[in-house]
């Protein structure tokens, strides 16, 4: 195995094009586990963290661009980003331990394409896009379209994700991400749920989106229109929960059962909706 440290996106793409068995290293918190376990034997590891901009969080068109090498802990330390997207940041900050937080990245979490990645549902609910660099230049892709199946992405040969972009926030908007795990830390989500809301000045929901993790082969967008026109009252929230439970298509595995995951999808939908609503109202005052 070789270790490569390109200093530009172009160099990185050139390496990836020349060597289809090379793998991109950002935080490494998934890649190194697989390497050590012998589940993966790449010909080269391409460390992209030394490319300019990969470790930056920058304001862009009123939104935020987050480099592929930004550690999740760095997102948590960015007050303005956290104020705009508390749900995205709390999802990112739930991955692993303090030690893992210092290394793991949302782009890595996304490209790992695990159904249970904690940072992905809130990115999807936020309508985030990623910038993909490849032999034919760059393209922007909706986050939801990156994973295609467990462990599989839509990235083509020679391509890698250089950043994720969170769009500008409308007034009175906020989001929340909740997951269920058996312990209080260190677990993979059994169910994850993100809700993203925009309210009018009277506190009535004008736009809502929701996504679920760990209840299907990839992150799942769920119709959240039950909340639109409501003030997140019990009836609206119960309708949202029912939609979440109905939309979930989980499997039985060592982490949970189908029945449990469907039930908890509804529970988390309720709780996340209420948390996002409270935040969005708070944002308006």
């Amino acid at each position, binding site marked *: *195995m*070789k*270790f490569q440290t390109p200093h530009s996106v172009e160099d990185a793409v050139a390496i990836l094009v020349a060597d289809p068995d090379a793998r991109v*290293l950002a935080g*490494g*918190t998934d890649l*190194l*586990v697989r*390497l*050590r*376990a012998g589940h993966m034997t790449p010909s*080269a*590891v391409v*460390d992209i*963290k030394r490319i300019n901009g990969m470790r930056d969080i920058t304001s862009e068109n009123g939104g935020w661009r987050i480099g592929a090498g930004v*550690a999740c*802990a760095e997102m948590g330390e960015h007050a303005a980003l956290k104020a705009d997207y508390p749900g995205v940041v709390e999802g990112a900050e739930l991955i*692993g*331990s*303090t*030690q*893992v937080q*210092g*290394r793991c990245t949302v782009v890595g979490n996304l490209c790992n394409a695990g159904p249970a990645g904690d940072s992905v549902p809130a990115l999807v609910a936020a309508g985030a896009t990623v910038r993909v660099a490849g032999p034919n230049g760059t393209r922007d892709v909706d986050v939801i379209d990156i994973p295609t199946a467990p462990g599989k992405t839509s990235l083509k040969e020679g391509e890698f994700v250089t950043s994720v972009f969170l769009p500008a926030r409308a007034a009175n908007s906020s989001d929340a991400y909740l997951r269920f795990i058996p312990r*209080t*830390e*260190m677990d993979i989500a059994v169910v994850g749920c993100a809700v993203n809301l925009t309210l009018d000045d009277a506190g009535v929901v004008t736009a809502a989106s929701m996504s679920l993790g760990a209840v299907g082969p990839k992150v799942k967008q769920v119709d959240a229109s039950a909340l639109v026109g409501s003030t997140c009252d019990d009836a609206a929230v119960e309708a949202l929960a029912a939609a979440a439970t109905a939309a979930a298509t989980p499997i039985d595995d060592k982490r949970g059962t189908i029945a449990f995951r469907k039930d908890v999808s509804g529970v988390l939908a309720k709780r996340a909706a209420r948390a996002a609503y409270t935040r969005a109202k708070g944002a308006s005052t």
Partner: protein
Amino acid sequence: MSRIHVNTTINGDAVDYLCEAEDTLLDVLRDQLDLTGSKEGCASGDCGACTVELDGRLVCSCLVLGAEAGGRTVNTIEGMADGDVLHPLQKNFIEKAALQCGICTPGILVAAKNLLDHNPDPSEEEVRYWLAGNLCRCTGYDKIIRAVLDTAAEMRGAA
């Protein structure tokens, strides 16, 4: 197989080593530099026994490649005491019986020091969540958490 030459700084000293691309920073610390205070408990980032600081941030050294450490600074348990003067956390872990078998102790001390460097007055809950990635199977964590809180109070008092 050609190996990679890495120049780095470990516990304040300029250090260089040769490593294979697969070698983790933990492999290098233990096998090549004989800094065996960092332990391998899982090799998957789930136990925290290999915790070190990389550019001041806590990481599991089993999840960092040895080659990545080039030009960066690494702090391990071996660098925590100042000569023969123990860090207050080290002193209190002994005095307050915050260890039994001791295998998790280096990782916990490095993590706790990093916490107190950033947050001199953590709550019990903050300490517990900060250290959630450091598994201890002997103590039930009780005396560890107390030792960290007591040390924080002591260091605030001394400051």
